[in-house]
């Protein structure tokens, strides 16, 4: 579980250009991390690559915060 969250945070850091300690669960992906439309596509593809999964559109659409991403990968991890 810890490893899963760590991997997801590393992906979020890579895509947003922030450092892992700067990324908090309550942060909004677009507003706080600057993950706009192209970057959110990159985020989803990086997550699919890192966890070898396929993220459904409905799940992708529900990811608005860092916490949402962590909860999603927590379910599949």
């Amino acid at each position, binding site marked *: 579980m810890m490893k899963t969250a760590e991997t997801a945070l590393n992906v979020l850091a890579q895509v947003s250009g922030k450092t892992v300690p700067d990324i908090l669960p309550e942060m909004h992906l677009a507003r706080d991390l600057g993950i706009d439309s192209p970057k*959110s*596509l990159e985020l989803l593809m990086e997550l699919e690559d890192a966890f070898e999964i396929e993220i459904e559109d409905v799940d992708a659409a529900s990811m608005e915060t860092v916490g949402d991403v962590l909860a999603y990968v927590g379910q599949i991890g």
Partner: protein
Amino acid sequence: MSARSAELKRRLLWPATHILRGIVNVLGRSYRFRILHEERLRDLLEDPRPVVICCWHQQVLAAAYFLHEKVHKQGLEMVLMASHSRDGELVARFAKLLKMRVIRGSASRGGQGAIRSLNRALVRDRVSPLVIPDGPRGPIFECKPGAVLLSQFARVEILPLGFAASRSWHLGSWDRMFVPKLRSRVTLSVGALRTVSRELSPEERDTECKWLEELLNELTREAQAAGD
């Protein structure tokens, strides 16, 4: 739109698809193709491997016919993306008639899922998508990042193409799409294959998009000049 009108339009899709196929066949068989930098395409067909094929939306009719006849049928299996609209349904049915795979979606609606589906098709099924960087609604000749992202994540090369025709009709659409007239000469300029690094910063991805945009314009100008 009333349910009756929607049902009528749905029923008209089947004859419309077959009529479109007939028109494309008649027009397409009359075209005389001229290929600039043909060796680039030949090298790829001699050693088939998945690539991201790109051209502008304006050229997609000429491109689709050429790619189906001279690339897909020559062993480089292709996949097309079609939007969820009724026009997209027509494209999807038409592509299926040509035995080409279709993934539904677009950059503006469900596009992220469609791009990710194309990525999976590239990696798992080794098929080559035709990606229209300024589609589906423009702005004309402005590159969106889908093609570069696909190349980056699937670790495959980009094949940029530019088309022009000696005589053509121009539609009134946002992209001023051209339809080569009967017996016109269609010129294709084939760009060099380009590898995109897996590790790209957002700034580097923007640079790659700009590169692709400029190259597609340059290839188009080259095809137009050669066709004059």
